[in-house]
């Protein structure tokens, strides 16, 4: 078999495996991944439009200036979250959200909280280097 043919076969083999893996990622159903309701969907769009992820994280992914908000709905009272959204903080600007927008953003936090726990403390560490819940 020629050198070129071997290279082509390796390239095609890897590419097909990648496409297969990609298809599985797209179409398999995650156990915990239920869809957001209409209000949470709108809340997610507000989260994106205001670029909240530049400072805050979801599941440890995002900016580092503010805290991770995946489970904020469980750790802080709703009134507290609403107050922060209404007035901002010394670091976070007031985004002048309407009452509906605040309610939908809180609904989004309720949804993110329902998908799982982001705290690294919630994982079990295994000797083979893997982690699990």
């Amino acid at each position, binding site marked *: 078999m020629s050198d070129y043919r071997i290279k082509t076969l390796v390239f095609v083999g890897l590419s097909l495996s990648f496409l297969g893996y990609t298809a599985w990622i797209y179409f398999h159903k*995650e156990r915990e991944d239920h869809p957001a309701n209409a209000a949470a969907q709108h809340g997610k769009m507000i989260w994106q439009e205001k670029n909240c992820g530049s400072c805050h994280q979801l*599941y440890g992914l995002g900016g580092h*200036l503010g805290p991770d908000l995946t489970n904020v709905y469980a750790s802080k009272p709703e009134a507290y979250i609403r107050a922060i959204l209404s007035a901002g903080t010394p670091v976070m600007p007031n985004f002048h959200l309407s009452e509906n927008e605040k309610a939908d953003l809180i609904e989004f936090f309720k949804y993110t909280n329902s998908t799982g726990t982001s705290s*690294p403390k919630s994982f079990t560490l295994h000797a083979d280097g893997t982690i699990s819940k």
Partner: protein
Amino acid sequence: MPMAPYQNKNNYAAPFITTGLILLCSALLFGLLAAIQYIVPGWGRDTFSFEKLRPLHVSSAVFWIIAGAMGTVLTYLQEHNQKPLKNKALVKWQFYLFAASFAGILISYFFGVFSGREYWEFHPLFAIPITIGWILFIINFTTNHLKLKGAPVYVWMWFTGAVFFLFTYLESNLWLIPGVRNHLVKDMTIQWKSYGSMVGAWNQLIYGSSIYLMDKIAGNKKYSHSPIAFGLYFLGLFNLMFNWGHHIYTLPAHAAIQYIAYIVSMTELYLFGRIIYLWKSSVTTARKNIHIRPFQFLLSADIWVFMTLGLAIAMSVPVLNLYMHGTHVIVAHTMGATIGINSLLLLAFAYDMAGSQGEVMTRNKKLIDRGIVLTNISLFVFWLALIIAGFMKSFWQMSDTTEPFGAMMLRLQPYFRVFYIAGLGLATGLGMVIYPLLKKQWTKRLTRNAASEFSGGSYQEKAVEIA
């Protein structure tokens, strides 16, 4: 197999590099402004807030890498083919589309227009010109070099980078489909799959160009046709495709994603071991070529490859990842990769294309020398400060403390101050390196100088002269 002389008659690729360098200046400026908010919390809160400054910094940096990589590939492709690009109008359109998109996106941030995606984000409408521009890049590449048979490894890498960037970029826009975006875990999985592999794609373009440049410095193409070069290329491709899962170990996604990413990432230990094994011969090569300006950048990038790869392998072990995820260790890794590797390699190519001869380069020799040293020292301090701050945050995350987030951030202030001062040094060092390149009025003179400097074996002739 000596590299034959080539008199390059066109400079269509030069504007990409010049634009890239301007974008690098923009990334440094907005990075410094954004970082003020770490040492003076609340600074610019109502005028120049972090949600605007961060994308200005990140997008400028990513555009510098993309523009620099495209310009380099198009320039080196002409040298490799020993003839100019076939369709100059198409290259011009490619440039105009990207330049307009870069400008439009940066301006849109000032008006608070975001897509809010982590980490590279802008309004989805800009995806249209960027996608068309990238398709033009693929057409420009393939119409000038379609044959992979007998091609050196860097041509395979350029081809791979061009195709996979398009694939991963399109994939990063799948959130526009409601069925994807309304399932948080699925959305975040696809998001990090695409962005993780996209970095691998632009690395193929940049690392391919660095192999081309090393061949040029060596004066032959032995390495780029060797089985080990192709072996390492396929190892890189394998990781590009399957190791992205280390970004999302803590996401409640399918466990298989963790296992696949963990096992695949560990194959990088071979690269790490190879760097250590070849350390002695690397030092010999370094002593031989250290007088060559582009080689100085390649050498710096090599050291950063070693450190960044070491950190990346550690981050790929899920248990260790747990202690680094969501902390500034990740930022340190990103900075090491984008500045220490990507930017230094792109600057090596830029100096290679600009040539070390001529009044501007001769007059600024000391400035460039000092700039390289200052860049590397500052980046190391910057990197270390972020790693220490990251581990401090990690202990906070993993402990049972009731200390609020704000109090923890205040505790990290000394490290943030060091990080900021080092950032100032880094921006100054890079500025000292960029200034002569921009001053040389690249768009007009780049390839003319490059042709005389690069005409196969010029580095060897120079080495003989110096000896």
